[in-house]
């Protein structure tokens, strides 16, 4: 970096470079953050004129006494808890295997990563068909093991598992790539030293690989949790625009969408958005706090 003090002239030049990005970001990223917080307090709001005639806590009072909102928070947490641990564990295992395999690694990577680049809408339609209770592939497969047909998408008990399975499948490749990066960054000498000291493969994995991989495990967990909190597209398509049978897959973003787009209750939708933001913030802070004790930066 050139150690020069900024001058008015250099500032003007820099802002000329920044201007296109700055204008868009200010209008569509920064301003709406503040506007969202503000809107969550609008209790009488005319969307067409953007005029606010009353402010208050009524939107928050509404969502915190709305059983649907509690349900959406609960479902979102169940979804995150259902997806993240399995996704992290599975992608870690596959990455470890891919890291060791000496043939066809590229081909395998392509296969595992493919779902990530595909349209969520299109692939959710495919899964909708796979989950079909009468003619679906999954029930046909399970029938070999004597399992009676499950009505995956219409039974409130099975809708969430169906959603979770599909989400894990779609996100696996992304996490695998991150773990592979983490694994290739580990200096092989650590492993060799442990081997000389007589550690077996399992001990080396637990005491060498896993601690050295922990920053990446942490990153994968944080990104998976954040994207889990924002799930929407998959639900919308899988359940044909509904929040699942008996609202069993009504998540926070789906709640926000319904309040905003179907019911035109902007203030309530904004309040649920603020709660979503705070939830993500709190969970991420907890993860960072936990990581200070358990993540080892070599």
């Amino acid at each position, binding site marked *: 970096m*050139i150690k020069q003090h*900024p001058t008015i002239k*250099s500032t003007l*030049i*820099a*802002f000329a470079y920044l201007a*296109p*990005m700055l204008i*868009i*970001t200010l209008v*569509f*990223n*920064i*301003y*709406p*953050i503040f*506007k*969202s917080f503000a*809107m969550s307090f609008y209790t009488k709001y005319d*969307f067409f004129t953007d005029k606010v005639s009353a402010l208050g806590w009524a939107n928050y009072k509404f969502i915190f006494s709305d059983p649907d909102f509690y349900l959406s928070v609960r479902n979102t947490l169940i979804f995150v808890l259902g997806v993240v641990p399995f996704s992290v564990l599975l992608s870690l295992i596959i990455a470890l*295997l*891919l890291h*060791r*395999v*000496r*043939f*066809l690694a590229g081909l*395998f*990577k392509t*296969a*595992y*990563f*493919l779902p990530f*680049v*595909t*349209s*969520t809408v*299109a692939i959710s*339609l*495919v*899964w909708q*068909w796979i989950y079909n209770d009468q*003619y679906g*592939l999954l029930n046909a497969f399970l029938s070999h093991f004597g399992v009676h047909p499950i009505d995956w998408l219409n039974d409130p008990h099975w809708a969430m598992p169906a959603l979770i399975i599909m989400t894990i499948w779609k996100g696996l490749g*992304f996490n695998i790539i991150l773990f592979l990066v983490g694994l290739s960054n580990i200096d092989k000498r650590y492993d060799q030293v442990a081997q000389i000291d007589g550690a077996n493969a399992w001990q080396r994995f637990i005491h060498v690989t896993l601690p050295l991989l922990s920053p990446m495990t942490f990153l994968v967990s944080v990104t*998976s949790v*954040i994207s889990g*909190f924002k799930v*929407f597209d998959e639900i*919308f*398509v899988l359940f044909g625009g509904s929040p699942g049978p008996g609202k069993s897959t009504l998540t926070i*973003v789906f709640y*926000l969408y319904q309040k*905003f787009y179907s019911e035109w209750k*902007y203030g309530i*939708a*904004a309040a649920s958005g603020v709660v*979503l*933001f705070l939830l*993500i913030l709190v969970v991420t802070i907890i993860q960072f706090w936990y990581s200070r004790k358990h993540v080892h930066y070599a």
Partner: protein
Amino acid sequence: MTKKRISQALLIIILTLGAITMLVPFIWMLSTALKTAPETVRVPPTWIPKHLQWQNFVTAWHAAPFLTYFINSLIVTTVTTIGQLFTTILAAFAFSRLNFYGKNFLFALFLSTMMVPGEMLIIPNFVTLSKFSLINTFGALIIPWLASFFAVFTLRQTFNAIPNELYYAAKLDGSSDWHFLWTMMVPLSKSAITAIGILEVIGSWNSFMWPLIVTNTAKVRTLPVGLNAFTSDAGTQFQLLMAASTFVILPMIIVYLCLQKYIIAGISKSGLKG
């Protein structure tokens, strides 16, 4: 060394089984897309259709304005990606090489906004775009995505890695910042820029919630929204639904297979997107 061979063989078997599981939905989609209507509901299901029904693709393509959706998606993806790369390159250069008042403040401000879920911004952005009468236009689909701080952040790191000596030398030769940026920095960062571009192409092409909210006529719908609308027309004609899904998915699979190494490098460099 036989022990090593056995373990390698075992690895390959496990990974192959896993890979097949990952690919089954795609195979099933294609298989269904090539079946006749009665064959789609046969129990037990068949993997290879008796008579390949290629005309299903033609029927599905004409059953809804997919050509319009396709062109719309193409326009939105192209303009968004090129526009975003342009704003990103300029801003990344400013953050990487230029000195200005408020640099650290702006950078910190942008970094902190990355924590905010984009879903929260949908409501105010919808209101803003309505004020400009841009709802249900390409403007609404494109303009909010013309800048991404995530992309700026990634590219800035690549720019920072370019030695300052090059910059000094260019300055001594009397080359302007603008000239230096486009003739030195951009070509030197080609792979990073390609990676950012491809990730944006994929994101833009597959984007659903925002286009769903800001479009309400077929004229401006993108492919994913159009495909979703098609589901109610197609009903239970699974072969048509799967044929339509195939041509929504196919372009990105082609992009991915051709440019795989850039995509993976892009994610590896900054796995923060999500």
